[in-house]
């Protein structure tokens, strides 16, 4: 009973802080708009199977009679070479892209954050080793690393995710390490040391929670970049495979028809653009409000 009470009590101040953050986010109109669109995108992603007009067009179904029709009341974004509704496929693509991007970033965070916190807090040779490895991964152009990985493991969305996570984690390691080093100078870390708290608890109890704000900013900004990379890889034939309605893949296929069916490539492209834009705007907004310099006021 008591512990239940405790958890509610614990939540209250957290909610208060969240409300404050939301308030700050809303102060910038553009960020506010981006926030709404982002929520909308996640909703679409979640509900995609239920809201697309032609659910069967998600798969390999062919309707030759309808092929390459321009946008109309029936097919908002026209149809593709198999006569499938581009609107349904673009809508469903949201689910695929967001899902892949969230998982990739999540995986990268899972690798990068602890390594960065350990390197920054403990220092010494552990730091040296971790940072050298990070340097090596950073010297690969991300796309090239992804290409290399996918060419070993074969193209599939899972491998794309893995490839992206592998090329993205070093950024989080660097970020968190820098944070950890400056946090280490804070007195509450020294207080914990004086108390006799173990390094494990200091790293994961004190350091990691305090790096959350910059990590969230970075992650939300990275979402855009990751979605772009997924699309690029699929475009190169190194990601999703047909008939998955992945945006990059759709544009890739549309290349063969783009001179006489502009809608086929334009709408998936716009979808990518809008989604990436929204995340970049959000990231920018986050950065502005979480920046201690602007937060002082």
């Amino acid at each position: 009973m008591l512990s239940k009470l405790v958890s509610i009590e614990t939540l209250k101040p957290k909610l208060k802080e969240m409300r404050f953050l939301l308030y700050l986010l809303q102060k910038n109109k553009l960020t506010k708009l981006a926030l709404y669109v982002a929520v909308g995108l996640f909703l679409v992603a979640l509900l995609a199977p239920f809201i697309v007009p032609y659910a069967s067009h998600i798969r390999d179904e062919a309707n030759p009679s309808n092929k390459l029709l321009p946008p109309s009341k029936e097919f908002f974004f026209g149809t593709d070479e198999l006569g499938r509704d581009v609107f349904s496929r673009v809508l469903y693509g949201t689910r695929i892209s967001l899902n892949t991007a969230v998982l990739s970033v999540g995986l990268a965070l899972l690798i990068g954050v602890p390594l960065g916190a350990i390197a920054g807090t403990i220092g010494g040779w552990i730091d040296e080793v971790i940072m050298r490895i990070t340097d090596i991964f950073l010297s690969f152009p991300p796309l090239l690393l992804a290409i290399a990985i996918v060419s070993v493991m074969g193209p599939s969305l899972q491998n794309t995710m893995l490839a992206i996570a592998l090329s993205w984690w070093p950024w989080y390691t660097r970020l968190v390490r820098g944070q950890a080093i400056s946090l280490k100078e804070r007195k509450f870390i020294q207080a914990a040391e004086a108390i006799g708290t173990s390094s494990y608890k200091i790293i994961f109890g004190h350091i990691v929670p305090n790096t959350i704000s910059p990590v969230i900013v970075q992650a939300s900004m990275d979402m855009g970049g990751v979605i772009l990379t997924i699309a690029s890889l699929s475009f190169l034939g190194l990601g999703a495979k047909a008939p998955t309605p992945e945006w990059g893949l759709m544009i890739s296929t549309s290349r063969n028809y783009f001179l006489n069916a502009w809608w086929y490539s334009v709408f998936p492209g716009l979808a990518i653009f809008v989604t990436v834009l929204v995340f970049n705007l959000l990231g920018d907004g986050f950065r502005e409000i979480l920046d201690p310099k602007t937060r002082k006021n």
Partner: protein
Amino acid sequence: MKTYFEVKNLKINNQTFEGVPTVLDIDHIEIQRGKTYGIVGESGSGKTVLALSILGLLQCPPGEIESGEIVFEGENLLKTSNRYMEQSIRGKKIAMIFQDPMSTLNPVFTVGYQIIQVIRKNQRLSEKGAYKKAVEMIKTVKLPDAEDIMKKYPHQLSGGQRQRVIIAMALACGAELIIADEPTRNLDVTIQASILKTLKELQKKFHVTILFIANNLSLVSTFCDELAILYKGKIIEHGRVRDVLRNPQHDYTKLLIRSITKDTLSKDKRKESKEVLLEVKELKKYFPVKKKFSKKEGVWVKAVDEVDLTIHKGEVVGIVGESGCGKSTLVNTILNLHQPTGGQVIFDGNNMFTLKKNELRKVRKDIQIVFQDPYWSLNPRWLVKDIVAEPIKVHRNLDEKSLLKRIEELLEMVGLPKEAAFKYPHEFSGGQRQRIAIARSLAVNPKLVVLDEPTSSIDVLSQAQILDLLDDLRERLELTNILISHDLSVVNYMSDRIIIMYLGKIVEYGRSVEVFKNPLHPYTQALFNSIPDIEKEGVESLATIEGNVPSAINPPLGCRFHTRCPKVMEICKEQLPEMKCIENDHYAACFLLTKEELGKKEVYLDINKSHKDKS
């Protein structure tokens, strides 16, 4: 007579999360030409906002000047254009000295370049003429090797030197009114005294008016002719310095005055225990000098060099010294946060440096620390209950229910409500946060609590309460305290014994009553006399020590203080003076304290021997 400078009905707002609170609401400030006018206010009282508004540099938004006038030589500055301010007022007529000399100088330009730019903007001089003038100004503010200083980047200068450069810049403009916004904050007291003296001398030489803003009443009252007390954006009291001090009207002013004239606690009740709790023997802590990428062997910062001290159960020992003297390193090494370079620390019968990890953890439980700044010493992401529970979780096994009970008990002990447990640190004021930090330090019933500047970053109103709380807790829980502070009044108030450190060494120690009454070491004397207090009239009464604190990388041979000591002798440069017991447990290390001078009282005693005698 026309008023030189006047502020009338100034109201300034600031946009924040919760509506629009007024930052400044000043009815009237009036400054006569050539005078020094002081404004005393704590951080957040709106001092800097006022300074920036005078120069028309307040960022709007978020700031907003609602109404009022700032009249300078008959002209309302708030009504003039930015262009006019830029061309005719800023620099030419009014210049500002900022509080942090490091961030006030542009890091990527040499000092000389920056001064020359300012001179050329405000005076019609050729490049050569400006250079000459700059060198002259640097000499005027008493910096040695002016030509050399010109070529340096800001980071190559010490804090005191940087502040002198900034004073030179302000004067080089030819400004007649200088706004000094806490010009000596972050500087050591001995440096502060000499900067203040220079500033005063130059004020007379150049006939400038100074608006002096600070948070320290003693400082302002020593430096200024008139003063005003700024409290929550309002001037609550103003007048001639003596009048305000003798006859304060407002409660806040009275409290301010009381806070800096507090007597010592009556320590008679304290039982003098002979039982030794902590013994430090020849403790050394050297840090290797790490040049980026190349570790040269054998270059060390001798932060703590062969320090001995003994602390008895139940007493409060104050450690005093300027920044870099090694007081914090000493404490951190005692706490085993640093690996010692040599020596022993014996706590409660355990040799701290030879203990195994397990045993060390147990012993550590008995030593806790309260840090200076309660804004940084509490994890902002943790609830108060988790913060206070941290030591308990490390050292003991309690179930959730008794843990919560214990936390509530601790919060009550430090005078906080139970509900505080479920809040985050940022919801509390500085004083309350310090109470949380104290609660945490007491959570596992320690024997020794180190207080590292416990009141220096909280507001005046809470300071006295915190000190009383600490004293009360010490008595109730039979604690022993080490108190580190640069604020002599705090040390005097709290401690039974006092230790004075300079550059990694103890130069004097003894019963605080004795030391305060009769400081023996030249450094102690200078230190005590360089601190402004409201009894002192004018900066001339402050003692100064010339020169900078030497680097601890290559501490001077012989007595560490000889490079700055006014009474230096040949022997001081060659030999290290021994610690001698002068009278009644009052020790000092200085060659001046010889047989002849001290007559019969003198007793030669090695400090180690005296320890052995006791135990």
